[in-house]
């Protein structure tokens, strides 16, 4: 028996470059940067003072009034998730479809944790600290935290809350998962959701990711790891994947959501098919907590697994949407891994990173990047890697520098590599009836 085919029938995103597919896509093709000084909190003394924020977002614009009243207490990122899910759901036509068995419609997100209630937490911490003994007095802390912290804000921080809100909004009773494998989460979510449909555990999966780490602890954590760019004097050009002068990634935020659907189910309701998910690979580096394996072992294996899962060879891949964070190590090792996978064709396969414009959406990055692959297939155009000025001998591939490129695109490979050695790759293909 041939395996069930999984197609994309809807998508939506909330990104630093716009709140709908076409606006943000045109900005990406135009090489616009979504990066600016941080406004969410006062970061003027932080090593990194800029990020790619979602601007002017109002959840109420995406929900009916009664829906908004129910969901208005969501965390920042879960709000992005609900809005993107609504866009994807509407795009798919499922909103108008009759006789959908909602016990067979599931959710699989790569949802990040909600931001901590930082101001209250910091105040309780200072109040609870005993400066005399230089230790925490948990009694004083408990008194203060108990007064300041709020039930709903704490509850909404759990990473699975966005998936729970989405289940309620659309009354979805299929399998409901949240994965949080750092920067690889939403690629992994989509891959696993694809396998659930293939197996028949669901007919439709709403899948993708959401995250915002643009908060004091998020920037602190990445600054302490020296993972972020600190190019404060020229932040719009700070995200420069594969460029020799790259100095780290730029935090972004947002959500990307896709409707994955079993092909016969999509056909039966006359849905438009945007593309087909044909391959998924997932591996662990099992190497070190801080470093990627120096040979790109896990990344190579994930790409090879995804290409084999699609029943293809590397020759069939027209474009690689790189993880391409703009850190020294990632870009070097990812380039090396691509060379290992593509061998003598490596220099002919265009590779680009939209993180140069959107920043790094962490758990949401993979879903948004998969959406750009689907749009590249639709429009036969590749998004550029902007801020690419200084070739790096360690990164010597075709990175689609600075300008979009019009070229036939049928099959794309999208990489996401997470802290902790988590590697995930998807292959997405132009839809053809014969398959």
């Amino acid at each position, binding site marked *: 028996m041939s395996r069930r085919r999984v197609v994309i029938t809807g998508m939506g995103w909330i990104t630093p470059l716009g709140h709908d597919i076409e606006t943000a896509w045109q900005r990406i093709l135009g090489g616009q940067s979504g990066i600016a000084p941080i406004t969410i909190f006062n970061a003027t*003394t932080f090593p990194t003072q800029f990020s790619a924020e979602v601007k002017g977002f109002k959840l109420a614009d995406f929900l009916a009034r009664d829906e908004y009243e129910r969901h208005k207490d969501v965390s920042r990122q879960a709000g992005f998730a609900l809005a993107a899910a609504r866009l994807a759901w509407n795009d798919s036509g499922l909103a108008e479809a009759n006789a959908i068995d909602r016990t067979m419609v599931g959710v699989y997100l790569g949802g990040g944790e909600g931001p901590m209630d930082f101001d209250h937490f910091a105040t309780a911490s200072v109040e609870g600290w005993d400066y005399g003994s230089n230790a925490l007095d948990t009694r004083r802390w408990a008194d203060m935290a108990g007064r300041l912290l709020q039930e709903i804000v704490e509850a909404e921080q759990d990473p699975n809350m966005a998936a729970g809100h989405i289940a309620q909004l659309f009354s979805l009773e299929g399998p409901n998962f*949240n994965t*949080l494998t750092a920067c690889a989460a939403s690629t992994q979510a989509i891959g696993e959701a694809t396998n659930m449909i293939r197996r028949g555990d669901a007919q439709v999966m709403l899948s993708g990711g959401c995250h915002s780490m643009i908060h004091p602890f998020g920037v602190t954590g990445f600054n302490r790891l020296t993972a972020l760019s600190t190019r404060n004097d020229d932040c719009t050009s700070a995200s420069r994947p594969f460029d020799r002068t790259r100095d780290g990634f730029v935090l972004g935020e947002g959500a990307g959501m896709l409707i994955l659907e079993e092909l016969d189910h999509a056909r039966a309701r006359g849905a438009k098919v945007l593309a087909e998910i044909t391959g998924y690979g997932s591996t662990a580096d099992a190497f070190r907590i801080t470093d990627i394996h120096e040979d790109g072992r896990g990344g190579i294996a994930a790409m090879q697994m995804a290409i084999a899962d699609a029943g293809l060879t590397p020759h069939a891949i027209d474009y690689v949407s790189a993880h391409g964070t703009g850190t020294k190590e990632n870009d070097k090792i990812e380039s090396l891994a691509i060379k290992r996978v593509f061998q003598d064709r490596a220099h002919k396969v265009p590779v680009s990173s939209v993180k140069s414009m959107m920043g790094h959406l962490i758990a949401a990055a993979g879903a948004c990047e998969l959406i750009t692959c689907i749009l590249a297939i639709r429009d036969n155009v590749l998004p550029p890697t902007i801020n690419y000025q200084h070739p790096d001998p360690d990164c010597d591939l075709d990175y689609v520098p600075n300008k979009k490129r019009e070229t036939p695109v049928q099959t794309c490979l999208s990489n996401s590599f997470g802290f902790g050695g988590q590697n995930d790759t998807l292959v997405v293909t132009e839809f053809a009836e014969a398959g």
Partner: protein
Amino acid sequence: MRMNENRVVITGLGVVTPVGVGITETFDALVERRCGIDRIQSFDPSHFASQIAGEVTGVNVKDCVPKSYRKATKVMARDIVLAVIAAYHAVKDAGLRTKCLVERGEVEGGINVDSTRFGANIGAGLICADLNEVTGALATAVEHPDAPENRAFSLLKWGNEGMSNLTPLWLLKFLPNMLACHVTIVHDCQAPSNTITCGEASSHLAIGEAFRTIERGAADICICGGAESKVNPMGLMRQSLLHRLATDANDNPASACRPFDADRTGTVISEGSGLIILEQLQHAKARNATIYAELVGFGASANRSDWLKPQADGRALTLAITKALADAGQPPDAIELVNAAGVGTRAHDASEAAAVRNVFGDRASRLPVLATKGALGVNGAGSGAIDVAVTAMAMKRGVVPPSLNTEKVDPACGLDVVRGDPTDSHAELAVSVASALSGGQTAALVLRRFGQ
């Protein structure tokens, strides 16, 4: 019967709980009715409404990693420590000679696991910051440090200098996928790896997904389950704010958590970890592995009514169980043992009991129910895998440990919770269920006694 060429069996159990380390110690303690709930020792809880927890004591993660990895234990949050210890016990129990055990010199012969066919799927919670560490750093970033009445946190000072008081790798202690990261490094698991973060349903979902991974041939072995510690001031505060805790038993901790009891008043936080070795049947047979049980069904659903309140009619869990039974190709009548979460709150236990009644009808009042939380409390992401491990052990030993503190079963729940003395059981098929207390995810797994 299921039509899949890759049957999946449980060949190793590793648990770390407030009543024991390792499955034998834990299971024996449960059979002997020992309770792991006591007044909190690891910090002063006296200004919290609930001052009790299930704490894990007497463990040292350094005993569970290769010598070369001891340094890395410094960047492990408590949740990670618990996962790494459980992983050690799980692979050892399964007779797998992993990189860790070989490097520690604990086993004869070389590594007997193909790393590229060895996966991981480990449920994790929202890992709480080590409060001493983070508050100590925050406390350096204040206006008027010498005038206590005017002292106030300053974000500007934090950015300038305060944050440098945190160790550079600080963030890596708290990323949920660092449980799987450390476990996969220590035991060299390079096949598909995932981290499910769905509260108390995490373990069941992770085990279910690992089951699918082996079924479809992407791995021969998966280490799966979950770990979490809620025993820290932030974890306790969050559960307090959510009004889930029993606050009337600070003077009598061992009786605090009362699954399905008519007089239950809330749950108790704890810490712990459960990791299970799932293995493709032929692979297990080829190496003469001990088989605890076969995993034959998995189902999952979600609460469509609310993301915080459980459904009175137990609909989402009913669906998960129904799907798991269908996946196993078994009618409800074939199930002879139910492992319920039984967290001890009024609403969650009622919802769970409603689901069991929905699925099993009249039989629900006679079906033995195994519930562990009276002894173990609720740790979050690791609770489910501990339950699955205990259930597998119960099937293998033919004994169901009793639920502590379940004295008079709530008539509204209408279940036959095993209580008082352990009960003999020869269940061929058991179902183990879990529901996320926040988020609304539900999951069920069907286990079958393994006969040659």
